[in-house]
């Protein structure tokens, strides 16, 4: 009788991770490559994609993916302070309308409307949300959900800012390339910026507020002031995305406050894996093209989209990014027993 050979699958963490969190002793080019590859590869891919796809339909999809990635990053940043937002559409809409309004009524050029919408819009959003920053959990989420709907209704019933027709013929980008590369650079800047910020002392305080706000208060820190700062930062990113989209479409209407701009970034962040920013970016870069590809299915689109979402969450509840990250840092091998 042949003896059955049994194997056990063993997982070990790669050595370099164990050495230190902050200082790497780079022993070889392999170690260096091991660290840089996961950072450089996605950046290079993102920079090359528009060149490959050009101004085609899928070239435009990259732009949309960047816009949604910015909103997902904005959501993830708020979540890292413990603020669960259901209102990325608020940031997007306010940014859109500030840029659109300044361009339409005051004829401001694009290089002024976008920064003005980013900072001014963020200020408006922060002022709107600061009064409810003391609300906990779902109550805060509810307010963020309602505010964009409220604005859409106000614009419609009061017939301000173009009413139901919206503001038309706004200044376009000189060409598709400029728009798409501004969007890509913004995503990378925000992604790496947030990842750095959250590990600095300021970011530590923000994460502390999420984990246990009483300890943070006992440490002499005004949690509401820090939450307000986090909202300002997150809404600046969302407003920037809105302003960019406004000039790309050359139009702004009530649809800027639509639920899509809340749901899709949220889904992207959750599927990709919240808390890492990279996960939120990855998630939207998967979901946005997917949702475009499903467009051909018409009515079934949302149903199938929903099934894919649930499937992703059921299979990888930690999020795609966290799964990939874990696997990347592990080596697996079979050993006989």
């Amino acid at each position, binding site marked *: 009788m042949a003896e059955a050979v049994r194997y056990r699958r063993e997982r070990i963490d790669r050595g370099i991770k164990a050495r230190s969190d902050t200082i790497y002793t780079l022993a070889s080019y392999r170690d260096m490559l091991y660290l840089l590859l996961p950072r450089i590869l996605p950046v290079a891919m993102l920079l090359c994609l528009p060149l490959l796809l050009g101004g085609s339909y899928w070239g435009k999809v990259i732009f949309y993916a960047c816009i949604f990635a910015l909103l997902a990053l904005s959501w993830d940043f708020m979540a890292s302070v413990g603020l669960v937002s259901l209102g990325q559409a608020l940031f997007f809409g306010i940014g859109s309308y500030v840029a659109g309004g300044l361009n339409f009524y005051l004829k401001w050029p694009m290089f002024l409307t976008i920064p003005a919408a980013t900072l001014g819009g963020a200020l408006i959003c922060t002022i709107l949300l600061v009064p409810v920053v003391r609300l906990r959990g779902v109550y805060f989420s509810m307010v963020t959900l309602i505010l964009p709907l409220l604005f859409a209704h106000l614009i419609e019933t009061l017939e301000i800012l173009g009413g139901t027709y919206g503001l038309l013929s706004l200044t376009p980008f000189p060409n598709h390339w400029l728009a798409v590369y501004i969007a890509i650079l913004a995503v990378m800047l925000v992604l790496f910026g947030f990842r750095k910020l959250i590990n*600095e*002392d*300021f970011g*530590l*305080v923000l*994460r*502390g507020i999420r*984990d*246990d706000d*009483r*300890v*943070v*208060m*006992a*440490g*002499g*820190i*005004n*949690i509401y002031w820090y939450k307000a700062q986090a909202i300002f930062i997150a809404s600046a990113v969302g407003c920037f995305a809105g302003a960019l989209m406004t000039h790309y479409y050359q139009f702004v209407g009530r649809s800027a406050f639509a639920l899509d701009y809340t749901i899709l970034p949220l889904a992207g962040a959750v599927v990709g894996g919240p808390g890492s920013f990279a996960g939120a970016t990855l998630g939207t870069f998967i979901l946005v093209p997917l949702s475009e590809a499903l467009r051909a299915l018409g009515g079934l689109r949302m149903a199938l989209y929903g099934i894919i979402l649930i499937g992703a969450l059921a299979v990888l509840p930690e999020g795609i990014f966290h799964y990939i990250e874990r696997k990347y840092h592990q080596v697996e091998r079979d050993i006989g027993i």
Partner: protein
Amino acid sequence: MPDEIILKVEQLTKRFGGVTAVDQISFQLRKGEFLGVIGPNGSGKTTLINLISGFVKPTSGKIAYRDKDITGKAPYTIACLGISRSFQMVRTFHKLPAFKNLIVPLYSPRVKKFGGGKYGERDDIAIDLLDDLGFERDSAVPYKMAGSLPHGYLKRLDLARCMALRPDLLILDELFSGMAMSEVAATLPVIEKFNREGLTIVMAEHRLKELFRVANRVIVLNFGQKIADGTPKEAMNREEVQKAYLGTEVEG
């Protein structure tokens, strides 16, 4: 001024629905004093600490800190004035390395005001503070995730967090509960040293023997009321106190 009044509590009352957790309590605390707060379970010690540190708003009464009315002020405002409190139930940031837990108080306006503490230096200050409390700097302990540390370490981490704020008044809520005997023995002299260096300390404690070694005055609570106030010996000899503790286990 050795006799400066640092804390003045007047007719402080807190009702939770039908329960009067703190009932008309008044006392004064002089700078440099070491005050023990004792009483059976549910007698209102934690509530009193929550009231002073601003985590709970009083139903009535007044709290003054260094002649400044702090009644109903926000916890972070009170902390920045120099009142630092620990938590009876350990509260730490589990997902952060132990020493990073101290970054939060070190980042506060109060500590920034003292100068120093720029980025990078904070980590060093945190390691120093933890070293004093038995987290040896050359070991891996200060760098371990807080969530992976034993309970006794977490209690001392909480104490270090309080000290990071450079308090003038330190309020400890059952610091010794859940600590091993050896840890208590090692922590007591550190607290005593803080007191000798001029820090005013209030300590709610169930472990009376250890408390009486360091506290020169105790107040005894029962059903939210202050039933005794004096040296440990005076207080424990009072009939009300003995009756309150009757049937409950007294350690020591």
